[in-house]
Every structure is written in C-alpha cells, then in structure tokens.
C-alpha cells in the first residue's frame, strides 16, 4: 500500500466540529503610518523619493531575474497596505521576478490602497490572484544574535513606501 493510502486509512473522521466561519469583531481603527514605522519602513512623498533615490530602477519587462542581484534600488507597485501591521500585498505580476523584492539592496513600493486589517485583506484576496503573492512588512530583519535587531539579513536593507492618494 502506498504511503498516501496508509496515512489516509489511519485517519478516522473525528466527532464533527463546525468551522467557525469568518471572524467577526476585529478592530478596524489602525494607523497605517504608525504600523509602517513599527515594521521599519519609511514613508516618502514622490518628491522626496526623487531626491533620495534619483537613480532607482523602475520595474520594466527588460529586467530579468538574476541581474537583479546587481540592482541597488528597485521600485515596484504593491496592491494595498494593511493598516494593522504595515504589510503590503505584492504579486508576481508586479515584479520582474519572484526574488525581486528580496534580492535588491533597497526596495521602494508604491501603494494606492489601504485596508484596515488582515480580515479585510483576505476579503480582497478571496481567490488567489497570482501564482505567487506575499505580504511584505518592512525590510529584512533578524535578531538571531543575542536578540539584537539587525536590519538587512538576507533581503532588502531598507523599504520605502510611497502612498499615492
């Protein structure tokens, strides 16, 4: 018998328990600016961005995967930011390669929309809208050495968010 059948045969259905359904009563009063700051992101205006990162690379189709390791500053578009935790939903379609937001040294994300919490976020994402998507909250970080927070573990060393009204 295959391992699959062996395993499935061993699993007896237990006494039924209902799925509790959608979570009700989640807080909605969150300040997305405060959350972005907590996760280590900077918020800039378009004008500030021009001054700080004039030579940034804007995503276009000519930018292929591995050459991204050489990109210093990459600018991509996010779908929305979640106010409760500063996480931005990104999809594969909006980046040159899945590894893009990880491998570049500094990341800039444009966001037009804000949703209050993760429940509202998955309301937007009921069905997968991409082969690969992620919530990204701030720059790469680690505290594996004596619990000291260090920004820039493997992924981007900084995250700049530009909110477009």
């Amino acid at each position, binding site marked *: 018998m295959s391992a699959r059948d062996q395993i499935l045969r061993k*699993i007896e259905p237990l006494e039924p328990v209902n799925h509790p359904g959608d979570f009700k*009563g989640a807080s909605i009063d969150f300040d997305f600016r405060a959350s972005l700051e907590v996760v280590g992101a900077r918020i800039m205006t378009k004008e500030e961005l021009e001054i700080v990162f004039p030579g940034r690379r804007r995503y276009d189709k000519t930018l292929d995967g591995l050459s991204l390791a050489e990109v210093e500053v990459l600018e991509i578009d996010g779908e929305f930011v979640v106010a409760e935790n500063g996480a931005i939903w990104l999809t594969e379609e909006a980046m040159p390669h899945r590894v893009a937001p990880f491998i570049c040294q500094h990341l800039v994300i444009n966001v037009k929309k804000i949703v209050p919490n993760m*429940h509202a976020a998955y309301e937007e994402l009921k069905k997968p809208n991409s082969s690969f*998507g992620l919530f990204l*909250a701030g720059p790469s970080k680690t505290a594996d050495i004596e619990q*000291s927070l260090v920004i820039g573990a493997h992924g981007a060393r900084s995250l700049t968010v530009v909110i477009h009204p």
Partner: protein
Amino acid sequence: MLSHSEASENFIADAERTDWHDETLWFVRAKRDKASKVLPEWEAMREHASQIKDHTLANLGEYLQAFESKAIANGIHVHWAADAAEHNAIVHGIIAAQGSKTIVKSKSMLTEECHLNDYLASKGIEVVDTDLGERIVQFRNEAPSHIVLPAIHLKKEDVGETFHQHLGTPKGNKDPQFLTEAARQHLRGHFLASEVAITGVNFAVAETGEFVVCTNEGNADMGAHLAKVHIACTGIEKIIPKRADLAVFLRLLARSATGQLITTYSSHFHKPREGQEMHIVLLDNGRTRQLADPKYKNSLKCIRCAACFNTCPVYRRSGGHSYHQPVAGPIGSILAPNIDKKANADLPFASTLCGSCSNVCPVKINIHEQLWFWRQDLMEAGLAPAGKTIGMKLMAFTLANPVIYRVGGSLLRRFSHLLNTRLNPWYKQREMPVAPKESFQEWYKKR
C-alpha cells in the same frame, strides 16, 4: 544521552548565563503580552483559531485530499511519507535527480525531526541552513535550542568566535550588525548557486492548494525563488481549510512568537515559477497515531510560535538542548513521547504544571494537562525513572494507611534533618524547611 534534569544541571552551572537566558526569553514573552493586549479581540481570535484547527483535525483526511488535488492542479508535485525514512528518501531522490551536491534549506523543524541533514550528508549532499540562527548552530555542530530563536543559548562572543573560525571574520569582533553582514555575504553566494532549495511550511490551504511560508530574514524566499527545484516539507497537521482562515492565523502567529505585528515576509506559494519544479512532502511520522488519541490529538493544533517556550519557567532556566529534541519546551514535551515514549520519558516531567503554556497558546492547546496525562501513561508503562516510581508507590502506600501516615509523619518531623542528603533530589539547590513540632492533627486535638 543525558536526561532533562541531568542536562539542566550542566546548563545552570553558569549562573550568569542562565539568568541572561531566563530574562531574555521573558522579555520576548512580555513583547507578546504587549502585542496581544492592544487587540480587544485577542481572546476571541484564540478561540476562533482553536475552532478552525478542531474542525480541520476532525476532517483531516478530506482536507488532505482536497489540498492534494488542488496542489496537483496548480502544478505542484505532491509526495506522502509515512515516516522519517520515507521522507528523507523522497527528498534525496529529488535532489539526486538534479545531481546537486550542495543545497540550501530554510528553517524547518520537521526536517530536524527527520534528521534530514545527517541523512543527506551520508549521501554526499551538503545542506546549508540559511536562517542566521540555524547557520550559527550548524557551524557549531549543535541543534537549534529554540524553534523560533535557534541560537538563543549563545552570546554574541560565541557567535563572533564561530564566525571567526568558519567565515574568517576578525577575531574578537562580536558586533551583531557586522556578524549579520558577514553571514549575508556568505549565504548570498549559496543562494545564487543553489539549484535546490528546501523550505518548511507554516500553513497549507486545502481550498487553494497553496502553502504559506513565514520568515523575517527572507531566507526561505531567497532560496526558493532562485532555485530550479523547490521542496517544501510539511507535517500533515499544517493544513487549514480556507484562504480566509489565514487572516486569523497570521494575526496570531508573529504576535505570539516575538510580539511583532506580522513576520516580515508571509509568502503564498500557489504555483511554481515558470520553468521551476515545486514539490511538497506530506509527512505522518506518528501524527495519525496522535490524532487517534483523544487525550493528545489537540497537540496537533500547534502553529509553532514558541510562546509556550518563552513563558515556561523550566524552559527558560534549563535551555532548549536539555530537552534533547528538535522541538523543546512544553509543546515538545508532549509531542516527543508520541514519537518515542522510552527515549522521551523524562520530558513530561520537565514542567511545574503551572499552566502558563496553555494560557499563552494561540490555538488553546491544553499543554499542561497533556503533560500530566503523559506522566500517568509513562508511570503506567513503567517508563518513569526508578526513583520516581518507588517514591510514588511509597507515597501512595503511606497516604492509604492512616497509621503508617501518622507514625511516618511523626518520625520525619523529629528526624527531618535526615532529608538533607544528596539522595533526596529536592535537597539539591534547596534548603529543606524546618518541620513543625506537632502535626495538624495533634494541634487540633489539643483545642
């Protein structure tokens, strides 16, 4: 192998380090409290997550099959492994087909459970662990001592020395920023070169056939997106029914683990990248046995946040290695005996049964009760340490015989100094209290 109490004795020999370990983990627990208390719905969310897991476990077979068919439709290869040996053979087969000699792996306690690294090494394949903490302990030939903070037992001086030996950083440099940068450069080379990447899985969604991997460093993604072949290894209990269920789990996970609002990266792998091969290995290894036992099935609800480690007075003061298991702490102490009762018979006793673990658990596992159930099972199976068995029998006999109880009590009150001996484990590191002159009964009779 040393038992938990023997290994703990070594750990606490360095009092200063023990205090540091204790305080650091308590600090993480305090961050968890702060993050959870700003959400009025926190307790309702724990209950909700618990119910989703209960519902899933009650229908696990169905959800596994639903996940399998969706994942296959998404172009993911699905493998099933009954035990660790099968799991390792499957993973090796995939790597061997690529002809790779060095591969990268992000954090996966399941591969630790299966001793995958050792197995692959025996086949001539080097595994490079890419989580910073895991890379540190791998250099040192140690196991992770905590499932979220693998190198929490080490001080920066230790890491500096390890990196000096293995990465050639200047001797004596112990600056975390500098050492992290050295690891970044070292591991980037491996990410760019590796053709196979292994990751763990935090959640596998039956509805969509996708799986979610959470990291703060971005190491799972760096590996998976650059490799030609991605192998994700998961226990069958990581299934959740719906995509929308992720909302409550992602809200709970990082807040419970480190007090963060969310992990930096929560990646949803739905289909392989163009030209990429994606595999998922579903492992049983005793989980179906645990599921069939009403006393212990709840332990399968665990989302591996390690909140129970951070709050545990015994874990904080004995260190993860004392548990001699990849998953230490309270949750490890109820998972390990299921895999090997005899080898892990000491673990359910490594607890004060204070219940703090159950109070912080984001999916409301009755951890302290299960520790107590295991103690009973182990005593019954004759697997408890001899001293404990004799002690318990003597105690039961005495408590069941009023005359012996009274005589024994009166003798012990008079000769209580005889308990101040190394033969009495309670005497170690403790002053025995002075016994009162008379018993309660004697006092009561006088009134």
